């Protein structure tokens, strides 16, 4: 294998799952994994959008049990490693044991960026199972560079092999990314990665900036399919990296084919930065809330922008999708009272 300047982790089949309301089928998985694998992508992540065990009322039920899809991914990949993401509190250590049996070799243990100490049990289980353990700090815009260093060091002490910070709300500017990545790279003994979202149209620029500050792992999804206004598009990241002279080990042309011919046809809508998507980044709200908020807005006849702004004010974190219903009901009540008064 040639040496590359960073490792690419594609999350079309995990983060992308949000954008299609977790309705992946086996034939989608086989085609996407085969394409990404052929392009040379090093790691392919697959799970419910909210990680292993995420299929629920709160986050949406999967069309097909995720472990069936994970098994297909493991069978299909020739050279790529298969990764799963799990959030302690939603998924279980038992889920890691099951997917290890299926052939998954990378476990990303994800938590809100201030709660690293709940990952100890699961990072250790992943290591015992012989997996690479990646500590994944979400909503990284809500913590300072120093705060993130503190959290990342905890995960390193539990045995994590790699640390990731995720801009889950797509709320970071290039400068926000540079300050966090440089502090983390300096403090850690293990490699760092960055997972970017495109709500402020910064995903590719932020990923390149992260690389320049020393990140050795970058995330993308095909055609940007993902929560909120979408992720860092894998094919664009690969193309831009090539222009920068960064060795990625992946073929941008094959990735463009995958995005155009396999992923775009199954997308219910293209990833654009519309008002709601932009508001997520602007208000710093977890990207996967978008479709849930749109549904609640329609059901209770309140503007989606008001729901998103109120969620931002309440400082809700990833996983609190139930609060979308709560906020929508309260807004509906406030609007009704205002009408009576008027």
């Amino acid at each position, binding site marked *: 294998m040639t040496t590359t300047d960073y490792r690419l982790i594609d999350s079309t089949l995990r983060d992308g799952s949000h954008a299609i309301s977790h309705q992946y089928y086996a034939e989608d998985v086989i085609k996407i994994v085969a394409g990404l694998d052929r392009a040379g992508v090093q790691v392919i992540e697959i799970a419910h959008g909210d990680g292993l065990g995420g299929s629920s*009322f709160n986050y949406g039920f999967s069309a097909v049990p995720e472990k069936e899809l994970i098994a297909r991914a493991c069978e299909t990949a020739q050279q790529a490693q298969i990764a799963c993401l799990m959030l302690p*509190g939603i998924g279980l*250590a038992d889920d890691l044991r099951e997917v290890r049996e299926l052939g998954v070799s990378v476990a990303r243990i994800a938590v809100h960026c201030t*709660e690293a100490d709940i990952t100890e049990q699961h990072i250790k289980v992943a290591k015992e199972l012989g997996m690479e353990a990646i500590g994944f700090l979400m909503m990284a815009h*809500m913590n300072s560079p120093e705060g993130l260093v503190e959290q990342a060091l905890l995960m390193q002490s539990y045995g994590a092999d790699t640390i990731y910070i995720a801009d889950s709300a797509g709320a970071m500017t290039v400068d926000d990314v540079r300050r966090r990545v440089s502090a983390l790279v300096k403090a850690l003994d293990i490699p760092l990665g960055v997972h970017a979202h495109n709500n402020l149209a910064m995903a590719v620029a932020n990923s390149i900036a992260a690389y320049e500050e020393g990140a050795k792992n970058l995330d993308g999804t095909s055609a940007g399919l993902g929560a909120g206004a979408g992720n860092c598009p894998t094919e664009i990241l690969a193309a831009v990296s090539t222009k920068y002279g960064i060795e990625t080990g992946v073929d941008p042309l094959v990735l463009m084919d995958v995005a155009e011919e396999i992923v775009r046809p199954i997308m219910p809508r293209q990833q654009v930065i519309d008002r709601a998507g932009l508001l997520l980044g602007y208000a710093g709200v977890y990207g996967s809330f978008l479709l849930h908020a749109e549904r609640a807005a329609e059901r209770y006849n309140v503007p989606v922008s008001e729901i998103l702004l109120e969620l931002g004010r309440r400082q809700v974190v990833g996983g*609190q999708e*139930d609060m979308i219903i709560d906020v929508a*009901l309260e807004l509906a*009540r406030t609007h009704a009272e205002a009408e009576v008064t008027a």
Partner: protein
Amino acid sequence: MPLRCAIVGSGNIGTDLMVKMMRSDTLQLAALVGIDPASDGLARAKALGLDAPHEGPDWVIEHGDDFDMVFDATSAYVHVRYHKKYADAGITAIDLTPAARGPKVIAAVNLTEHLDAPNINMVTCGGQATTPMAYAISRAVPSLPYCEMVSTVSSKSAGPGTRQNIDEFTKTTSTALREIGGAETSKAIIILNPADPPIIMRNTVFGALPEGTDHDAVIESIYAMEKDVAQYVPGYRLKNKPVIEEGPYNTPGGVVPHRVVVLLEVEGAGDYLPPYAGNLDIMTAAAMRVGEAIAEHRGVSA
């Protein structure tokens, strides 16, 4: 004569329980037992005129004849080591840890089912908050194919026990939704929120409603349960009216046309812990309720 009680564990939960128990007519608290002589809880116990030894659970065993009941607010591994010793000493144990050695009791649902058990398990804070609503739904429907709870607690009120073994919380809570709540399948989710000022504990219960459900009866049953729980946890309330949402929903218990969403808030009484820690308050309040029910069962009159 009131039951003679000891609380083991002088941390947040034990100390909050102490403050509550000082008000009881049927439970007479004699000791708060810790392991750290410098703990705030023990200092407060001394100030209240209680015994406040720091020799840990062994002290209770040594003074076994002085106690009818012990409330264990230590941690699961300590309770696993001592539950048999309490039983051998003839002391009824109310277990606030997730050790789950005795039958599970949710105060608003199966309070009277295990009054003679030597050991009672209080499940989890999320279990005490949401199982009553699972039960309220299941008693109003022909069947409850699937029930799910989401508990969000402030980071400040989630102790090291919860953090180091979060799977135990979700598994135990999920089991209670089935065994006591009456759901056929279930899932439990816990989220920690670091917002400052800390958020009040929130719980959401989703129930799968099969074809032919009387929706009004479900809502009525939920309101009735809110009142029942609020009798011993005054800060327990519906944050919004329960809503029925239209699916279909492809749940693990089968496809259903509707779901009911119950949005709850638990504000603590602020006895020792601040009001946002409703998750701890509901545990201590429920444990007290169980202790008092056992006292009544044994003929102690208030």
